[in-house]
């Protein structure tokens, strides 16, 4: 990131905006599903699930899938909270069908929105007309011009790429959805995966046909902001043999959301020689300085390297949520397949993060790389938890793990929990871990050269994250840096 000079950065900005505008339009054209609906009353039972499925006009098999998941969920014990301190969640107090969002409690205009939020949009350079939607102001469609979006969609169609909402995919490509849904994250996988499978609201579906290199970065940026896709999002990406796709998820602007609990599931499938690059910048509302409010983010993300030579790469920059619990993982089934995990997780105030990855080596000569950068500020706590498992038949599997923690201030904490399980003696597993503080000497050095304290911290943190930032697509990297800077404000003094 640091190398990005002014010029490239501003070019990237422009491109970025163009991409967003296009995605914007794609949303208008491709994602809006017309659901005339009131919100279901809070509570979760079989009947609620039937109603969700009926309202979405789903095929029978999908309803069965949901009901089955619900049964599994009911039988599951409460989740193991790892290093987290999670207040009890009352699952019966949540409404499981609320799209489209009711406008009743929404602010009527930006004047009613928390000025702090607006200030942040300003710093991030979010265009004015986007702020209203991000802040949840009750406005109708704000999109104009249709042409750009149509071009965008046509371009994808030309090469056979499917990029649509999950609900739409269920209607238009039921065979594809049926084949892959739950194939990577089965509903019985964990408590939140089961809950999601039972009640998921909507999400994204991506299909890249054989030999196709997706001509653009696919982004959910706008889709997620424009409509409350709900707290139980579902994403499925399938890359057929020899294909490539880069998918961007998330949003740098802090989002207001009435739903405190978010439990998404993301499944990636990479066939022979296919590559999937999945990048996330996540900034859910973390709660205020006193730890009040904030989103609980419990996500199950997993990629399956099904074919030989396939590759899945997760890159994430996380600054949001009151509580984050997520471990984007790779199952390396194909021989010579590889998995990567690059992560920056920043916690401030009373935020808690327990993130990491799992790399499951099943095929021969499989390779995984884990670079995790944890930054703790204020009274926050930041844990890395990683599992590298090498199965009996995974000859010559290799893993390299590097976990670095940076502490800013005295009251924060960082913890690293690397687990390795190897059943094959030819495996090579390397682990490096460091914990450091921003040293007085580093700060002084910057100050002496004329760089003020806040900029100095930002510079040092940026350097610390460099290995991860360089994995992000350029425009995302620029946003990620801006986001970290904002999250770091007031970190010292």
């Amino acid at each position, binding site marked *: 990131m*640091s*190398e990005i*000079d*002014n*010029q490239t950065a501003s070019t990237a900005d422009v491109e970025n905006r163009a991409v967003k505008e296009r995605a914007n339009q794609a949303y208008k054209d491709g994602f809006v599903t017309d659901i005339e609906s009131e919100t279901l009353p809070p509570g979760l039972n079989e009947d609620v699930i039937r109603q969700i499925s009926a309202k979405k006009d789903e095929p029978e098999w999908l309803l069965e899938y949901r009901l089955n998941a619900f049964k599994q969920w009911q039988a599951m014990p409460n989740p193991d909270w790892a290093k987290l301190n999670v207040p009890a969640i009352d699952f019966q107090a949540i409404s499981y069908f609320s799209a489209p969002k009711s406008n009743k409690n929404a602010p009527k205009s930006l004047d009613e929105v928390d000025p702090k939020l607006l200030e942040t949009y300003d710093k991030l350079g979010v265009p004015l007309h986007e702020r209203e939607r991000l802040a949840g102001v009750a406005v109708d469609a704000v999109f104009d011009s249709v042409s750009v979006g149509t071009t965008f969609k046509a371009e994808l169609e030309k090469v056979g790429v499917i990029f649509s909402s999950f609900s739409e995919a269920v209607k238009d490509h039921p065979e594809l959805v049926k084949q892959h849904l739950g194939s990577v994250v089965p509903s019985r996988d964990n408590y939140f995966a089961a809950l999601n499978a039972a009640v998921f609201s909507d999400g994204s579906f991506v299909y890249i046909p054989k030999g196709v290199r997706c001509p653009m970065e696919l982004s959910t940026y706008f889709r997620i902001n424009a409509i409350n896709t709900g707290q139980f999002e579902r994403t499925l990406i399938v890359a057929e043999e020899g294909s490539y796709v880069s998918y961007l998820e998330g949003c740098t602007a802090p989002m207001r959301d009435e739903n405190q609990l978010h439990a998404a599931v993301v499944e990636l499938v990479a066939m022979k020689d296919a590559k999937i690059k999945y990048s996330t910048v996540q900034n859910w509302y973390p709660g205020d300085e006193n730890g009040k409010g904030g989103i609980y983010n419990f996500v199950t993300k997993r990629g399956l390297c099904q074919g030989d030579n396939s590759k899945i790469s997760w890159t994430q920059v996380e600054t949001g949520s009151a509580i984050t619990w997520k471990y984007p993982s790779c199952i390396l089934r194909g021989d010579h397949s590889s998995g990567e995990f690059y992560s920056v997780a920043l916690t401030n105030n009373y935020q808690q993060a327990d993130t990491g990855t799992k790399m499951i080596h099943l095929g021969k000569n499989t390779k995984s790389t884990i670079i995790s950068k944890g930054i703790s500020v204020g009274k926050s706590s930041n844990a890395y938890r990683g599992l590298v498992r090498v199965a009996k038949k995974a000859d010559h599997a290799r893993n390299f793990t590097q976990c670095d923690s940076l502490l800013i201030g005295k009251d924060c904490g960082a913890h690293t929990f690397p687990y390795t399980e190897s059943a094959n003696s030819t495996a090579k597993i390397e682990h490096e871990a460091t914990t450091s503080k921003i*040293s*007085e*000497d*580093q700060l*002084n*050095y*910057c*100050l*002496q*050269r*004329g*760089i*003020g*304290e806040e*900029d100095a911290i930002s*510079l*040092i943190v*940026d*350097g*610390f*994250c*460099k*290995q991860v930032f360089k994995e992000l697509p350029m425009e995302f990297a620029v946003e990620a840096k801006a986001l970290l800077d904002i999250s770091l404000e007031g970190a010292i003094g």
Partner: protein
Amino acid sequence: MLNIKDIFAKAGDKDILKGLNLEVKPGEVHAIMGPNGAGKSTLGNVLAGMPHVEVTAGSVDMQGKDLLALEPEERAAEGVFLAFQYPVEIPGVNNMYFLRTALNAQRKYRGEEEMDSASFLRMVKQKIKDMNMRDDLLKRPVNVGFSGGEKKRNEVFQMGVLEPKLAILDETDSGLDIDALKIVADGVNQLRSPDRSFVIITHYQRLLDYIEPDFVHVLADGKIVRSGDKNLALELEEQGYGWLNQ
């Protein structure tokens, strides 16, 4: 340029500077020598405003400004540059980006326009050539994995880019081989001008063969105990500091 009057300073619980006086006029080069632990680096830290040193009495005037009232980054922008005795590593931050951030922060403070990356690159490339240094220095993270000598050269290079009014070099010659010493000395000599002053802290007379000082001072026990011209350095080289106490 610089007028230091009766400075007392301490770090931790230790009184280090005990009534130090020094006047530096524009264009002058002052060498400061003295035994280990005398307070030489502390003097540099006082001028640069490093937070761990506390000034308990005295004043420092730089071109009519009360230097002690300014924040360290403000002093930098006013033209104070300290080449550190032990330059610090900043992993992941590329040297050139670091310097551009520094230069633009200073320019901004001075109300000047920030320099765009293209002009900056051109300027820096020229500088590195003029100073006979290798340009791989630019791409590497600040001081990370630099040899001792490379770190010192990097300090001088940064000085060249930032063009300070008052440069304090703290043992920049220590640990340099003969060639590097010449490069560093050349770097300083190129920057010498009627409106730029240098305070050069060193233990070795040989540096002064390359950079000819206008004055040589001996700092011992927190004070300047002797001042002279460049011949003082030669005497010290022959006789050590012991004779000063006789």
